[in-house]
């Protein structure tokens, strides 16, 4: 197992390359999901305000 992870001494390079790619490719969709939530929240807020303005 350790032999697999060390990869003939290149392990740190290979795994850090994989790690950077993985980190960025998780960060991007996560930030998109958060952005989507905040946009939806904002639209809802304006919609609520509009609805209340109509009531009054």
């Amino acid at each position: 197992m350790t032999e697999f992870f060390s990869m003939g001494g290149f392990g740190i390079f290979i795994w850090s390359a994989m790690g950077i790619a993985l980190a960025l490719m998780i960060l991007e969709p996560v930030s998109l999901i958060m952005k989507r939530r905040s946009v939806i929240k904002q639209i809802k807020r304006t919609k609520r305000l509009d609805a209340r303005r109509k009531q009054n």
Partner: protein
Amino acid sequence: MKINWFKYSAPMSFYPLAGKLIPLFWIAAIMLILGGLYWGFFKTADILNDQKQYYRIIYVHVASAWMAMWLYAVMVFWAMLGLIFNTRLSYMLASATAVTGTVMTIIALATGAIWGKTSWGTYWDWDPKLTTFLILLFVYIGYIALQSAIDDVRRSDKASALLALVGLALVPIIYYAVNCPDPTQCASLHQESSLKRVESNILIGMLVTTLGFWMYSFATTLMRARIIVLERERSTTWVSNLPEISLAETSNSKIEARTETRS
């Protein structure tokens, strides 16, 4: 049979369609990337002996580098379509593609530097291909910066589309200049990229991973495009009729509670 493609150029019909497609692209992306890496890591043990183990970086490196270049072409394609047909959705897709392209360029540069350390013994060398990717990064960032600097949506769409076209015209010239600083001869640290010389098991791993990265790009681009659609069409009725925008009871009661405490 004639399909009306312009039907899907309306944000209203694009939005639900993209919503259905995104999970499919995610599944395809995860399966292809894992499969490609598995193939590349475990089916190549006999070729990649101890001295060549670092070759495993190449699956992620080549995949992201190809996508970085391909996404620029895709971005220019949408920008051009926008300028010709003046469809709003094309511009939205162009700007959605740009960010994923930037991410891919950064991954390609980072993994390229690590690859360089293992095979050439230095993290950074002013090798033509690395330099070209650095410039590609600058061009992507310029596009995004111009777009976010202009408040008027119509102007920002058109201006950045024109910039993308200018970039496309100049990138080959820049590539040539970086590749051949002395016009009488061109030199490169990178191996001549001929796919024929690559061992077939490595090639399979590379191609499958690239396909997975492509599916990933589809997924994130569509996600971002949906957000842009929501932001720009927020005042239309179809947006406020969407199920995710409907005001659920829980949020209503929250509001009432808040107004009560305030009064």
